[in-house]
Structure formats: structure tokens, C-alpha cells
């Protein structure tokens, strides 16, 4: 038994105090009684029991001394050290699975070195008959093997070998392209320490970690970085439209173990410079030629480096390791071709530069070519509410879409194909177009190919406040609007609406119906807007904007992500194919979260209708800039808790002492009760 707080034994001084209390006669309580005659007589009887009385008094004193002793020991926090099971040496290996571990030098990545070192430790442990644990610090740290004995060495070896891909193909390694959860992995190691505080924990990484546990030697860190490693990295890049011409920029840096700088070539190449999307949805150049494949055929010359004009040399010089150089390619310069539109820009470190970490050598600026949406509004009595709305969103959403708005005027026949969004008001065409979204407003009849709809009477009211609309089931189209703010004085009753979802009601009749299928993207609004104040309320443009976003959603909200980010994918068509990072996925329900696990360019392809060409968009996924710094130093904020296990043992012993104390207190009370007082 060991005492964690030996000073608690000072409580034994209480025994001396107890004896002093016994020695010093306490004050007698005075009591006047009629006569002491019987008490004197009783003493004769009492004397007969003196031996038992003395024994009881001694027992009480003994109990009190033992109670004080037990209290003193409880204060001293006694523990019995749990014996560590004789399992020989126990080792825990944490393998860093961060993107930086993919740094390759002399044909071997840091991750491969780490795995080989882990295998060596596993072998050594098995030879000593010890227990081995391996933890992979990927973004989600997990045990590869947990407290595996020497008899399972083959399994351990196989599990470690499975971390590496085919010979020479580091892409298949189980090492991630994100930041590894080192803190989580060390916490997992701490669980092992709680069971065996003598276990040896080794973190194999390429990062220089500092921290209290490392200083104390509780956590052993083996750094697998090598002297010759270096990295030229594109940390970030972007495009700005300045006076109608694009200016591209990139932040470049170099990381070397010796702290030195480097001079290397960074190239900026443009695909589809000054191309546009024509009415057929094709991307064509100024001369009408279509865009073909990955033709990055326009190479730009840097126009400034860190603000200094450098018009001639494409080579970039970074002074010392860790410096960030800001490079610009301004296309307002005639030499760079006066680019006012583009499809994609590829900024990359020249192939001739053989650095150790290539995941940050390329950077794509996608989303340069905005998708085109064509809208046609046909009405026998044009309504400025619709024209105003569509012209408004053409300006508001110009960064996302190129919106062409056409209005059919003066009894001209509306086009029945070639548009993405058709609006027919009052006079309905004989048949509906099938290559886009169709919004029917206050229809006078049902087109032939519009199935499931039967129109009824026109309903009117003399009430100057009109009919009040009511919401149906919650729907993206009716979100953020208050139906009561859309009054109507006349509407046409819809008797049947098989296959449609009613979103708004008027007097119990549906007045807004929606259907969103591959060949039938139809919305029917049977309220007469020119007999309503709806158009001038806030809710009407909100309703139309919701409808536009519902039928014509953006595929992604941005074109640049980091590995590990999750994008909410939407599509105008029934399905979307995502290809990139060595895999291809088809998504058919939207919105759908998609997590990017590898860096590089991803292609998003969808088909709106069989008649139209597929829409292709690209997004770029970069690695974290932090991972580009191969020789960074980080503080490990997790502390290993060796003491936790011993504390739990202490507690168990305290319970025993407390039980003895309770027993002694009960015995003392029993003796007192037998005696009848002090």
C-alpha cells in the first residue's frame, strides 16, 4: 500500500487528543435530587459488573482510536498500485495520415517510411513477446490493430502492409489528402495508456510537433522528413474582372528544410479564351469554332510579382522557405490577349520542376463560362409584372447565369422549342414545349399534351379585398412567402390535377400546381394577376424567384473547394454524374451532399432533356495550404493522462477504508448503546 498524501497521517494526532480528552475529566453536570440514598445503594450492585464495564470501556476506546486511524488513512489517500500484467513490452504506434505524408523523395513517400517503421516496431515488439497497437491518424483517427499480442503478429503485419498501395503507386495508399487528426489519434493512444501506463507511445510523422508530453518523453516522436525534400506550392489562386478584362493571380511559395529559396517556372494557361455559349448551348470561340477538349491553348505571361512589374520572364523567384509570392497575369495587357471570358484557367508549376509534393502543383480556376438560360414570355395581354421580374433576375443573377429574355409581342407565335423557361399567359398554345420548364398563368384552355388537368369555371368576387390564398404542403417554391399577401379577385377553378402537387389554394381550390419530371416540368398558376395586387407585393417576385431556383438550380454554389469539403449538389436534369479524384458517381436525388476526398479537377455532367446537349461544369478541389508546408512546426495540444488509471485505483481503496470506518462507527455506537451513554 502506498500513501499519495502522507501528510494526511497528521490526522493520527487526533489519537493524542482523544487520550487527552479521556485523561482530562470533563465537567460534571450538576443535578439536585431528592436523595442520593438509592444511588449509594446502587453502587454496591454496580461493583459486581466492573470487569465487563472495563472491558466495554476499553473496547470503546479501541474503536475510537481505530476510527481516527481510519480517518487519517482516508485523508492520506491510500492506494495499492495495480500490478501491470506481465505482457512484456507494450508499444503504441501512431502513423500520421495527413496529406503532407505523401511527400515523396528518392522514390519513397513519408507515409511509406512511416509504415515501414511501424512494421519494424511491430516486429521488435512481437520478438519481445509484447503487445502492439497501431493507430492511423487520418481525418478520422482509428485503430488499425488494438493491443495485439505476439501470437497475432502475422495479422498485424498484414494490416500494416494494407496501408500501402501497389508497388510504386502512392495514390492507392491509405494516407489521406486532408489534415490528419493527430490529437484524436493521441487520445486513442491514451486509452491504451489507461490500461497500461507503461506502454510506449510513438508518433511517426513528418511534422515537427512540440508539446509538454513530448518534452517529458511520454510521447516519442519519430520524424520521417528528409533533408532533400522540398515543395513548390500554389497556395491559392483567383480571377478578377477588371475593366471587362480578366486578371488572374496566384500565391506561390516554396518550402525547404534548409530555409533557402528557389527560382522556378509557373505557367498560367487559359482554355476557351473569349469563348461564349451560343443559343444552342454550345461553347464557341469568337470565330464560331467550338471548344474542343482540354485545349489550354492560351498561355499568359506574368505581369507582376509581388507588385513589381515583370513582363518578360515567366520564372518566379521565392526568396526563402515559407515566403509567399503573389503573381498576377493581367489580360488587359494586349500581349496577354485581352481576355473577357474564359472557360477554365490552369495555373501550374512547370513539369520540369520536380518537387517532393505534387498535390499542390496545379490549380484550376473553373466556372469562367456562365451557363445560359433562355426565357420566353408569351401573353395575349402582356403583364409588366412578369417582364419586370425576369429582367430583374437577369441582372441579379448575372454572375451565375447568362439569361436571355424574349417577350412575344403583338400576336406573334411563340417559339415552341429552344428555350429553357416558357411562360404562357391566358392564351395557351395547342401543345406545350417539352425542352424546358413551362409556366402557365391563368390558362384559358388545356394544351393537348398537358395531361391530368381539367379546367373549370372562372370564379370572381366583388369583395374589394379579393380572395385570400392559403398555403398547401411546404415546398421550396412557397418558402419565405406569405400566401395571404397574394390576393386575387378572379381565378379559374382546376377540377382535376392528377400528378401535380398543389402549393397554393384559393377558397379550397388549388391555384398553383407543380410537376417536376424529366419531360414535364410544369407549373400552373390560375390566378388572374392583372385583377390582383399580387404583382406589387414582395411575395410575388419571391414566388417567381423560388420557382426559377427550383426548376433551374445551380449545380454547385462555388467552383473551388478544399479536400474534405462537402458540396451540396443540385441539378436541372434527373441525374448528375460526378467524375474526378479517380472515381465516378451518379447522383439522382437533390440536393445531395458530396464530399471531396482527393484533390484535382472534378467534372459535373448532367442532361436537361434528351434533345439538348449535356451541360458540363468543372470544379477544382485543392489540398489545404497548411499541408504544403512540409517542415512546419505544430504544438500538440492533447495531454496524455497517465495518472488517470492510478486515480481510479485510489478510489477503490478509499471505498474499503470508508467501509471499515462505517463498521467501526456502528460497533462504537453499539457498545455505547449497551452501556447507555458516555
Amino acid at each position, binding site marked *: 500500500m502506498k500513501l499519495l498524501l502522507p501528510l494526511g497521517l497528521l490526522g493520527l494526532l487526533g489519537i493524542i487528543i482523544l487520550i487527552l480528552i479521556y485523561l482530562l*475529566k*470533563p*465537567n*460534571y*453536570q*450538576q*443535578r*439536585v*435530587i*431528592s*436523595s*442520593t*440514598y*438509592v*444511588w*449509594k*445503594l*446502587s*453502587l*454496591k*450492585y*454496580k461493583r459486581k*459488573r466492573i470487569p*465487563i*464495564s472495563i472491558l466495554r470501556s476499553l473496547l470503546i476506546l479501541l474503536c475510537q482510536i481505530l476510527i481516527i486511524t481510519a480517518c487519517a488513512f482516508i485523508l492520506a489517500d491510500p492506494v495499492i498500485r495495480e500490478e501491470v500484467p506481465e505482457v512484456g513490452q507494450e508499444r503504441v504506434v501512431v502513423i500520421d495520415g495527413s496529406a503532407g505524408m505523401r511527400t515523396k523523395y528518392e522514390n519513397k513517400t513519408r507515409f511509406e517510411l512511416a509504415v515501414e517503421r511501424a512494421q519494424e516496431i511491430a516486429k521488435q515488439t512481437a520478438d519481445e513477446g509484447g503487445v502492439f497497437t497501431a493507430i492511423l491518424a487520418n481525418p478520422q483517427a482509428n485503430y488499425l490493430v488494438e493491443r495485439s499480442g505476439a501470437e497475432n503478429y502475422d495479422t498485424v503485419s498484414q494490416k500494416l502492409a494494407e496501408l500501402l498501395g501497389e508497388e510504386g503507386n502512392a495514390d492507392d495508399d491509405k494516407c489521406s489528402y486532408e489534415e490528419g487528426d493527430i490529437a484524436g489519434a493521441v487520445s486513442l493512444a491514451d486509452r491504451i495508456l489507461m490500461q497500461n501506463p507503461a506502454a510506449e507511445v510513438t508518433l511517426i510523422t513528418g511534422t515537427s510537433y512540440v508539446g509538454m508530453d513530448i518534452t517529458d518523453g511520454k510521447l516519442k516522436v519519430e520524424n520521417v522528413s528528409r533533408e532533400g525534400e522540398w515543395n513548390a506550392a500554389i497556395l491559392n489562386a483567383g480571377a478578377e474582372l477588371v475593366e471587362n478584362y480578366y486578371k488572374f493571380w496566384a500565391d506561390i511559395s516554396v518550402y525547404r528544410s534548409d530555409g533557402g529559396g528557389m527560382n522556378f517556372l509557373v505557367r498560367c494557361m487559359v482554355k476557351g479564351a473569349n469563348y461564349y455559349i451560343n443559343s444552342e448551348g454550345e461553347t464557341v470561340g469568337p470565330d464560331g469554332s467550338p471548344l474542343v477538349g482540354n485545349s489550354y491553348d492560351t498561355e499568359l505571361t506574368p505581369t507582376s510579382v509581388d507588385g513589381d512589374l515583370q513582363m518578360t520572364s515567366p520564372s518566379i523567384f521565392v526568396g526563402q522557405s515559407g515566403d509567399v509570392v503573389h503573381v498576377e497575369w493581367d489580360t488587359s495587357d494586349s500581349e496577354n490577349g485581352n481576355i473577357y471570358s474564359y472557360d477554365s484557367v490552369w495555373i501550374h508549376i512547370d513539369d520540369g520542376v520536380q518537387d517532393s509534393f505534387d498535390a499542390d502543383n496545379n490549380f484550376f480556376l473553373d466556372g469562367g463560362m456562365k451557363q445560359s438560360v433562355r426565357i420566353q414570355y408569351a401573353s395575349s395581354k402582356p403583364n409588366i409584372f412578369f417582364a419586370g421580374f425576369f429582367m430583374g433576375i437577369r441582372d441579379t443573377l448575372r454572375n451565375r447565369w447568362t439569361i436571355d429574355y424574349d417577350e412575344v409581342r403583338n400576336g406573334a407565335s411563340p417559339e415552341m422549342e429552344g428555350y429553357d423557361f416558357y411562360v404562357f399567359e391566358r392564351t395557351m398554345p395547342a401543345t406545350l414545349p417539352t425542352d424546358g420548364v413551362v409556366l402557365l398563368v391563368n390558362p384559358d384552355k388545356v394544351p393537348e399534351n398537358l395531361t391530368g388537368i381539367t379546367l373549370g369555371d372562372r370564379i370572381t368576387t366583388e369583395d374589394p379585398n379579393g380572395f385570400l390564398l392559403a398555403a398547401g404542403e411546404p415546398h421550396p417554391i412557397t418558402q419565405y412567402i406569405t400566401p395571404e399577401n397574394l390576393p386575387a379577385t378572379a381565378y379559374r377553378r382546376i377540377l382535376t390535377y392528377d400528378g401535380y402537387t398543389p402549393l397554393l389554394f384559393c377558397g379550397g381550390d388549388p391555384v398553383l400546381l407543380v410537376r417536376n419530371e424529366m419531360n414535364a416540368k410544369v407549373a400552373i398558376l390560375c390566378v388572374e394577376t392583372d385583377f390582383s395586387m399580387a404583382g406589387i407585393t414582395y411575395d410575388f417576385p419571391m414566388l417567381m424567384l423560388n420557382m426559377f431556383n427550383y426548376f433551374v438550380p445551380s449545380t454547385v454554389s462555388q467552383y473551388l473547394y478544399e479536400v474534405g469539403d462537402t458540396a451540396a449538389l443540385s441539378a436541372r436534369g434527373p441525374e448528375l454524374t460526378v467524375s474526378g479524384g479517380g472515381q465516378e458517381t451518379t447522383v439522382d436525388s437533390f440536393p445531395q451532399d458530396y464530399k471531396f476526398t482527393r484533390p484535382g479537377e472534378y467534372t459535373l455532367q448532367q442532361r436537361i432533356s434528351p434533345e439538348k446537349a449535356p451541360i458540363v461544369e468543372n470544379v477544382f478541389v485543392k489540398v489545404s495550404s497548411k499541408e504544403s508546408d512540409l517542415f512546419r512546426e505544430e504544438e500538440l495540444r492533447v495531454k496524455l493522462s497517465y495518472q488517470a488509471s492510478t486515480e481510479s485505483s485510489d478510489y477503490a481503496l478509499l471505498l474499503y477504508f470508508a467501509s471499515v470506518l462505517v463498521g467501526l462507527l456502528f460497533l462504537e455506537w453499539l457498545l455505547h*448503546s*449497551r*452501556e*447507555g*451513554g*458516555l
Partner: protein
Amino acid sequence: MKDSYLNDDFFSRLETLALNLRANLSGFFGGKHLVKTYGQTVEFSDYREYMLGDDIRRIDWNLFSRFEKYFLKLFTDERQMHVQIFLDCSASVGKVNPKKGAYAVGAAAALGFLAVHNMDKVSFKLMKGNRAEDPFGVLVGKNSFFRAISSLEDVAFEGDTDIAECVTTCPNVGSNDGLSVIISDFFTDSNWKKAVDYLTYKKRQVLLIQVISPEEQEPLYNGRVSLIDIESSDLADARNMKLRITRGLQLAYEEALRDMISDLKSFCNSREAGFLSVCTDKPIEKMLFGELLKVGIMA
């Protein structure tokens, strides 16, 4: 508020009772107690043959006609007794516990009332120190009795009492003429047995009534206690005690008290004296109507 049992209601309930004294007492003329001697009452008792000198007017001529012998018709005699009540007026009886004193006075007054109610004489002997005071003299009749007990209520319980000395030196104890009652707690070192023996020698019927309080019967205090005897002169008095009262000592106390009462009872039995030990938590009526009836002193 002063403890007192003496009121009209208390005495009115006693009117149904009477003292049952031994028949071999001689007493005085004019009472209501039947005695063994023959007298002039109308209640027939026995016959005896005529002897020379007998009054011929008492010859039963009917028997003469039958047996041709002279027989005298004898009648019972009724005597007046003298009831002497020795009341212990020491501090132990009533100073610490006034209720106990009132109880003792109540018992004395009740017995006195029964005496005067049955046309007996009664005298209250207040035992103080080593002499028995007789402040009221011999009381006959209820008027004088009630005058006396109004003063009896105010009796002071002080000092200690030597019962034997008080009884044996008491003048006019009388002989074979009534009942002597000693009311005390008998928590005394004096030889009270000598008093009983003396009264027995005087052929008086003797009754001892021991009055104790519940606290004396079962002490509730424990621990380290300095017991001050109320009769002690100062703290250094040998009668004072310092005790560590434990459950064991309490049991010893109870046993000692039990043995003491047993000793009193057995001694009284040996002297054909009555003995009664009462606790003040018992209603005085229960003592009078129950315990005294059991002893046989009441009828």
C-alpha cells in the same frame, strides 16, 4: 402553581370509604369501630352463662325456659380509635419535587379525613429533624379537621428527618388504641425499623406509605453527573456524589430501589404492619381506592 390535592371534590369522594382497623384494638368509647370486646350496642354477639355479679336484667329468659339455665345475651362493642399520621417533612420529600410533597400531604389528609369521618380521633405528627411536631393536636370532627389541613398544605419540607427518633420520642403515642401511619420516602440512613418496632410494641396498628416520584423510580439523566442531595449541607457533604451514570448503573439503581422496597415490605410483613409504595405519577385516587384496599386498611 402550588400542587395540591385537597379540595371538596377530593374529600367528597372519600366519604364512601372507611378505615378498616384491627378488631383487637381497645380504643376509646364512642366510636364506630367494631372491636372484639362486648359492649352495649344493639348488635347481638354471643351468649354466656350467668355469673355471680352480672346484671340480672340482661338474662335471656327465653333461653331459660328452654334450658332452665341462666344465659346472658352479649352485644358487640364499638370504639373510637386514634389515628396518628407521622408525615416526613424532610427536604427529600417535598423540596425538590413539590408534587411529591403534595402527594404525601394528600395521602395524610385523606387518611385523616377517613378517621374523622368515622368518628375517630386523628393527629398529624410532622417529623422534622429528630422530633415530631403536633401543631394541630388531636382532631375530632370534620370542622376541626378542615381547619387543620388548611395549615397542613403549607407545611415546609426542609432539613433531614430521623424517623426513629421522631416516633420514639413522640409523646402521647398511645397504646393499643388505633392506627399509626408513617408517610415518607424512606430515603434515609436513620433506623426507621426502630420506629416500627416501637409502634408495634405499643400495640398500635402500623401502616407505612412510601411516596416516590417517577424520576426516583427511573432516573432519566445519564453521563457524568454530580448528584447534589437536597438534604446535604454543602457541596462537600458526603451525601453528594459524582457519578458516571451508564446504562449499567441505571440498572443497578433500579435493582437497588427494588430491593429497598422489598426490604421495607418484608420487614413490615414480619411486624404485621401494612406497607404501601406509591409513585406520584399514579393518581392519588387510585392509591386510595386501589392500593389501600389491597393492603386491607380500607373498607
